[in-house]
């Protein structure tokens, strides 16, 4: 993750703005790119985007907080997304989620571990219902998960962390 406001990264965001044009319809694609760069939406950058697109910071903040994809908090190095769509839910996604949270050491209300290694969240449906319950770790899908199986996957990741 680059430090906020580093010139080369602002360059990249400027390029995106140039590509999509500086009007409101560019806002969501621009925010998606910002999140791609920083893995979240830093407040300073939101103000920058607002100025560049001729929008009020409130409009940008409103859009950024509306959509589930955007995060205003920094995420961990590994993002674990547990699918809680209907198919996954009836096939037992809740025990899988609990096992993951316990494994990485998250207590109630926490989404990201203290060492910023893991962020655990749920998504409504990945459309991979044939694999239920499904878990996505850093964009790789793991299907037919059980608390035991996900624990093995996480063990591998934690080895890398060390």
């Amino acid at each position: 993750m680059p430090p906020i406001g580093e010139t080369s990264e602002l360059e990249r965001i400027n390029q995106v703005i140039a590509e999509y044009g500086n009007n409101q319809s560019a806002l969501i694609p621009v925010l998606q790119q910002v999140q791609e760069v920083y893995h979240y939406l830093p407040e300073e950058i939101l103000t920058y985007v607002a100025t560049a697109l001729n929008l009020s910071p409130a409009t940008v903040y409103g859009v950024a907080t509306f959509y589930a994809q955007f995060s205003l908090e920094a995420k961990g190095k590994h993002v674990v997304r547990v699918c809680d769509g209907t198919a996954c839910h009836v096939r037992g996604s809740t025990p899988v989620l609990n096992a993951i949270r316990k494994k990485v050491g998250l207590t109630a209300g926490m989404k990201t571990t203290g060492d910023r290694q893991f962020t655990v969240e749920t998504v409504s449906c990945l459309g991979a219902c044939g694999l239920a319950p499904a878990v996505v770790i850093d964009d790789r899908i793991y299907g037919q998960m059980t608390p035991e199986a996900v624990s093995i996957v996480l063990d591998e990741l934690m080895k890398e962390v060390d």
Partner: protein
Amino acid sequence: MITTVQELNNRADLARKVLNQVRLRILVCAGTGCLANGSLEVYELLRDTVAALNENVEVVFDHEDSCQKTAIAVKHSGCHGFCEMGPLVRIEDPNSERHAGDGILYCKVRPEDVAEIVERTLQKGEVVDRLLYKHPVTGETYTYQGEIPFYAKQTRLSLANLGHIDPDDLGEYLAQDGYQAIAKALTDMTPADVINEMDASGLRGRGGAGFPTSRKWAAAAQESDPVKYVVCNGDEGDPGAFMDRSVMEGDPHRVIEGMMLAGYAIGASEGYIYVRAEYPLAVKRLRQAIKLAKDEGLLGNNIFGSSFSFEIHIKEGAGAFVCGEESALIASIEGERGMPRPKPPFPAQKGLWGKPTVINNVETLAAVPYIILRGADEFRKYGVPNSPGTKTFALTGEVANTGLIEVPMGLTLREVVYEIGGGVRGGREFKAVQIGGPSGGCLTKDHLDIPLDFDSLRSVGAMIGSGGLVVMHEGTCMVEVARYFMNFTQNESCGKCVTCREGTRRMLELEQKIVDGEGSLSDLELLEELAVVVQDGSLCGLGKTAPNPILTTMKYFRDEYLAHVEDHRCPAHVCQAMKSYFIIAEKCKGCSRCARVCPANAISGKVKEPYVIDQETCLRCGACVAACKFQAIEEVA
């Protein structure tokens, strides 16, 4: 470049010729399900192994002499639909009559199976029996894909090319009469003819509401504004539905062609495809398809030398269920919070940037090329009079054959769940099916013979919705399922209407109270009352349909609700709060294992003597049951 219909036909002929010259075609499923199960490794290994045999694996559609009779084409395809059995590998022999439109299907193929497939099937023409589909009940094996009961009952019109063509190869789509429908419309039909044909077909929107597609088109066509838009709704948000994803990933050119036909019919020259952020592969395949179509002149100015021009942009969603609602989707494309707007004016009058806009779901648009090319009468041969044609369903949950299917409208639920789906997984008893996602309803055993079409389902309080079918067995608590859906809609409510924003929250609280064993009879009354208010007072489909899961479960599973509120008992043994755990003294060896795992320190006793659980401190987490090696802990619901 393809600038005339003649050139299109020439290219299609060439593509077909090249396809027929190939000795064998191997299609490895590259749908999301199979990819996650490792189909990419299978594909790469197959390609490399075949290449090592000095066989030509690449098929180029530009040159007639590009492949020899001995060539084996190794391709990756879109979703075959039979996700339960993935990774799937289909082998087609274009020179065999038996194979016409069919092929050998190998199931659950691992990289270690590749050598045997190459040696026995590709080189010696034998079948590898152990990789064939074996019926779990009868034990019968099936060599050809079309014979498998899962496929035999299906009619694949919109999904025809899925699993059959390589989505990244334009030539393969052309060989299947690709872009012939738009060619026919541009040369032989006026825009009004196209709308009339759609009207005759009776196609109803596949996104959920079932509104006649031709009516939307006719309304937009009437508008005099020179700028109009076609929007493809690929924001498939219903948990448990993945047909739009599969079509966009497996047959992207069909979606493009459908949009072009809509554009021609209403007089639009620009289109947007709004795809869910959770579907990166669909975005990638659509981008590639648009690029190929543009490069060939199939998209752009003066298509086939006519005055019709069309271009398509992709907009990625950012994760909001409500954006599946058309006016919210428009707001999202415009860069605003995705909130619905009051109608009228309808999008067909004032839509994207205030211009007349037609919004159709992916599956609806995918049906259009078939209707225009083959004619409305051909389409009406399938389905029932009020719901003609076919519908895709995503069959998931506790069903034996999970996957994506397409059947004529009007097939019964029993045929879908038992004959295609193979019944309930593990031979357990069927309890209910949730149809249409969070907007739909739960149906019971008594509804198994109901025909699946728009009007029949509405008459029992459910809806087809996008076509998610989640099967549940007897171990599912319907109260908990209703709570789950309420949690979903409560989370996804955009907050514009008070009844939806606050109503869904209050309904969720009541459901939670019941699931926690603290509900009362008056809570059930309050739930029913609230449901009506939320339905009546909400602007868009999200709020109007949010109470459906609760209303249908309360109607068809009232005894379960009563058991929860009157006896504080969960008949399905699911709701944690109503369970209690006891140690059976005779079985307990006093090993202290349970006491050590108990997070609440609720278990006490002396080593080598029976332990006891203190019911006051017990959290009902069940950790002790899992830890006990002597099955000495009993769960009582």
